[in-house]
């Protein structure tokens, strides 16, 4: 309901806010793909989401050499930068011999997040240091209220159905198999590192697309965008909604930030406690998340 409410709302602020949450939902889907379906727990997904924010900021705002680039080229460049970053990380983490799994993989992604946050802080005029980068480009009629909402909704719908199709495909079936029993898939003769690598790159590109538009719309990107805080927050949305379901992370990424925004206006001092309690209760009672629980009930 919350997702569709802007279609009938005239409250530009509300519509704009839901548009932002829809891009966060795309970000959450990128995490769900590799963690919920592929079993790769990551603490560093903001590297791609926030990293794309920085890339689009640098490409479209800085004045040096061929810069600034046109907006569309900057967005494509930012998505490519996130995908390339994912590809680079994947060469270390999914090596044919000594590839990383479980906690080891999570620690490496955490380290990437910490390193990028420091780099953003120390990047001087390129990254804007602590102040980040102010972006002056606008997305034209798609920058505010209903236009922005429709843009975000279109990207979310395309991502949702694209991932649904991928997960039902041959390659997606193998990837889901990896999430359940990686060694077994390898023993069946599949090239597991290659499949993990390219799905990780896909996940990075999806996060990059969402991140580039999100921060263009925000008009600013700062070091926290690539940091551990952002990477952890998206995990909470996925857990709350239900990892391994496509609808769950969308619900989590819209409902939790919305709840946070509402409560922070009314419960000035205690809203964080209320959100924390809700999360703890949900995770304790239904560890599979809301939609994970509902799906299981429907199956059994």
């Amino acid at each position, binding site marked *: 309901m919350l997702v569709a409410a802007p279609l009938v709302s005239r409250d530009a602020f509300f519509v704009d806010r839901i548009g932002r949450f829809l891009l966060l939902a795309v970000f959450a889907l990128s995490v769900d793909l590799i963690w919920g379906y592929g079993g790769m727990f990551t603490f560093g997904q903001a590297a791609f989401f926030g990293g794309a924010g920085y890339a689009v900021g640098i490409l479209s705002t800085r004045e040096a050499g061929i810069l600034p680039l046109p907006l569309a080229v900057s967005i494509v460049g930012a998505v490519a930068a996130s995908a390339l970053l994912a590809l680079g990380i994947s060469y270390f983490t999914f090596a044919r011999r000594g590839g990383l799994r479980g906690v080891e993989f999570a620690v490496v992604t955490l380290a990437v997040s910490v390193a990028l946050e420091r780099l953003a802080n120390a990047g001087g005029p390129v990254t804007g240091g602590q102040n980040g980068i102010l972006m002056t480009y606008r997305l034209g009629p798609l920058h505010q209220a209903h236009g922005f909402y429709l843009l975000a909704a279109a990207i979310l719908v395309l991502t949702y159905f694209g991932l649904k199709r991928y997960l039902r495909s*041959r390659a997606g*079936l*193998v990837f*889901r*198999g990896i999430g*359940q*029993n990686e*060694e*077994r*898939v*390898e*023993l*069946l*003769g*599949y*090239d597991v590192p290659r499949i993990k690598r390219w799905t990780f790159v896909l996940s990075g590109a999806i996060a990059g697309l969402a991140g580039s538009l999100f921060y263009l719309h925000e008009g600013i990107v700062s070091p926290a965008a690539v940091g551990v805080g952002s990477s952890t927050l998206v995990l909470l949305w996925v857990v709350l909604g239900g990892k391994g379901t496509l609808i769950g992370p969308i619900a989590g990424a819209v409902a939790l930030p919305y709840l946070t925004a509402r409560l922070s206006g009314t419960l000035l001092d205690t809203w964080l406690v209320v959100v924390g309690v809700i999360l703890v209760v949900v995770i304790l009672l239904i560890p599979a998340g809301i939609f994970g629980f509902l799906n299981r009930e429907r*199956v059994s």
Partner: protein
Amino acid sequence: MSVLSVSGLGKTFGGLKAVANVDLEVERGEMHGLIGANGAGKTTLLHLIYGRIRPDRGSIHFNGTDVTLLPVTARARMGMGLVFQIISVFDGLSVNENLLLGALPKDSTRSDSVDQIEVEKVIELVDLGAVRDRSAGKLGHGEKQRLEMGMVLLTRPTLLLLDEPTSGMTQAESRRTAGLLQTLRSEGAIDAAIVVEHNIEFIRLVADRVTVMHRGTVLAGGPIDEVQNDPAVQASFLGRLH
């Protein structure tokens, strides 16, 4: 040419010689039983052949190719298939999806329909048609065993390696599995099989020749009726055959 030729194979874990100087030949069309007491090195040998464990010495030739140092994935693609003792089907996927994972080509030159046709053949062979849409986690033990075998069969193995395939099965299920292996051979679906088993009745039903292992070495080899009369074998293990 033998389907499999193992020569002087050895593997030591810490100070323990799990497999020591083992020679083994498996001919085309042969079902070969690998028997011995617990800790004799049967499963280690099977996993050395499949490449899950790397040997310290010796060589393994598969259809004339030296595969001693090749990884599991390469051996699987060359036509080796291992049916695990501990069932490792994908609990969260349906029976049909589990089988498709076995059937899908590791290259991508064939169409989806070809894969599904192969799944249909195997689903009938392992008798799981009635539960094809059920998630594998909800199957009974015998059904899971058959699914495990079905997945491996769909990788189109020419050499089938089975690690205690009747473990946990009822007598009727064991006989059914023996019938399945005989069908696979008579239809030419596999070139050869190696079966590690404690169930001697099952070995009698399926194996043409057996190799008896004891403390990592080969104690005796040949048709089971000959082997069971070997005094050394009787002293160490096969008293149980009588």
